[in-house]
């Protein structure tokens, strides 16, 4: 669906990507994590064709994104972190935006706005930032675009809306859709993504499906100093030591993305070596 080969990109003198490779497949929700300024949004902008690679190739659905052809743009919906909706009513906006997306489904849109409890009779500018974001996410999902790029989608959402967001996104995924979520709100991705990607120093430092992470790594709380000595990563807490261990015995555990993220940044070679 999306193939990125040897991507090089720099803002004037500041290099962002130097030889990044990535393949995104349909039927998956990818979580993209990274420090501030590592290029998460820049990667999304390159995929969407807002920015052009200085070297390397990006291909999505057989299109070159930088050409920004209507057929390509109709297969993609990008929800940016910062956005501005026009000063018109929701109904007017949908009536004049949805027809550009061949797969748009009005009933689906109404379903999502109900799920998110968005007041539909208001002007868009009268809605709060969080409500506007939910409108945008509802449109994104109702377009049935095969590729959804969500940049910090949970920023501005209240606690209840965040859980609704996870529910709605999980329900919207099918075999033909690919959803890429860039965020630093690691906790918001738990139980949602099925692939974790960590971006660092212009490259994908870690990229594994959640199922393999759960198979390969063991996340546990312990007071045992011996176990702590074997840990790939450990954190102290009131409940004991939170550890990431190699999962030799294929024990069940729930991956803690925040810990894994820190562990990968500290010790990526050792952790990647566990994933042949």
């Amino acid at each position, binding site marked *: 669906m999306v193939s990125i080969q040897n991507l090089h990109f720099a803002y004037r003198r500041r290099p962002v990507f130097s030889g990044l490779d990535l393949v995104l497949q349909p039927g998956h929700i990818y979580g993209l994590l990274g420090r501030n300024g590592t290029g998460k949004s820049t990667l999304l902008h390159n995929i*969407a064709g807002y920015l052009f690679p200085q070297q390397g190739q990006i291909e999505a659905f057989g299109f070159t994104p930088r050409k*920004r052809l209507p*057929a390509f743009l*109709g297969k*993609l919906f990008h929800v*940016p972190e910062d956005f*501005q909706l026009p000063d018109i009513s929701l109904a007017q906006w949908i009536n*004049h935006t949805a027809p550009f997306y061949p797969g748009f*489904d009005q009933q689906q849109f109404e379903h999502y706005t109900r799920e998110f409890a968005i007041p539909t009779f208001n002007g868009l500018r009268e809605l709060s930032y969080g409500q506007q974001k939910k409108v945008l996410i509802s449109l994104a999902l109702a377009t049935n675009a095969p590729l959804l790029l969500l940049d910090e989608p949970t920023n501005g959402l209240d606690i209840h809306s965040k859980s609704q967001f996870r529910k709605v996104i999980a329900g919207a995924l099918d075999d033909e859709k690919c959803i890429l979520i860039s965020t630093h709100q690691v906790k918001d991705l738990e139980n949602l993504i099925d692939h974790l990607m960590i971006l660092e120093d212009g490259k994908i430092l870690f990229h594994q499906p959640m199922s393999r992470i759960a198979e390969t790594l063991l996340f546990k709380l312990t007071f045992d100093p011996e176990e702590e000595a074997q840990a790939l990563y450990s954190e102290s807490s009131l409940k004991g030591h939170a550890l990431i261990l190699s999962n030799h015995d294929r024990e069940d555990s729930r991956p803690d993305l925040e810990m894994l993220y820190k562990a990968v940044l500290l010790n990526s070679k050792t952790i990647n070596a566990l994933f042949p």
Partner: protein
Amino acid sequence: MRTTPANQFFSFSRWSLLVGKHWVEHRRGYILSLLAIAGLLAVFFTFIILMQGYATLVIAQFFAFFGGLYFAGCLFSSLLFADLSTKKEALPWLSLPASQFEKLLCALLFSVVFFFIAYTVVFYCVDIPMVHWANNALRHHPQNWPNTNQPIPFLSVYNVFTAVGAPIPEANHHLFLYSYFTAQAVALLGSVYYTRYAFIKTVIVGVLFLIAFVLFENTVITPMLPRNWNNDVFRWDQMKYIMEPPQNEVRLPAGVEQMLITLIQFGLPPFFWFITYHRLKEKQV
């Protein structure tokens, strides 16, 4: 499910959707702007009549029309792609599934066609009552030209299309109207080229270009001419012998002159639109 038009360069149905979307999202601002223009024109005419007398309305109509058209038209054009200057407005614009050509054509429809028509209508909505007011006043209180016994005749509404009654020698060529479309095309290009303060930067570049042109005329072209021969920045197609008598002039062959005038009148706006299109295609946010 809708079917996608196959043509990725231009589809009339997609372009119509784009025009409809642009109108719905901007109509409130456009209508308010036109009302503001009407108000400013009315204030200007009233001020001129009260301060300078009825006769000045002949010149005032000309300067109000073109002054307003150039300023408001260029400002409007430079705002059409203002969305591209901020990320949060540029991203929805760039990601909307329409071709860059359709987006440019939509901007041209609003700036070149609709704005010109709307501005001209608004101008006459203000101008015609003002001329009637002045003529009524002259009918009841006839006035003479200053320091003469000649009565000021009734005023006529200035025709912007034929330039009849314009206080300029270029009435036949009507260059002011043609060059407006060039200035507007430059403003449109500037709005794509510059991300911030596009209108101001475009005006500065335009002024610098005019200064460079005048300097080129004076320092390169004029010294190459024989003694007592001169050329004029605004009469670039003819050289004049400035010592009188006799007065001579040399002009380009009529065909060449006409071709150049036609090219400048009708060729420059599409030339700048073409560059704007390519800048749009390469625009990154």
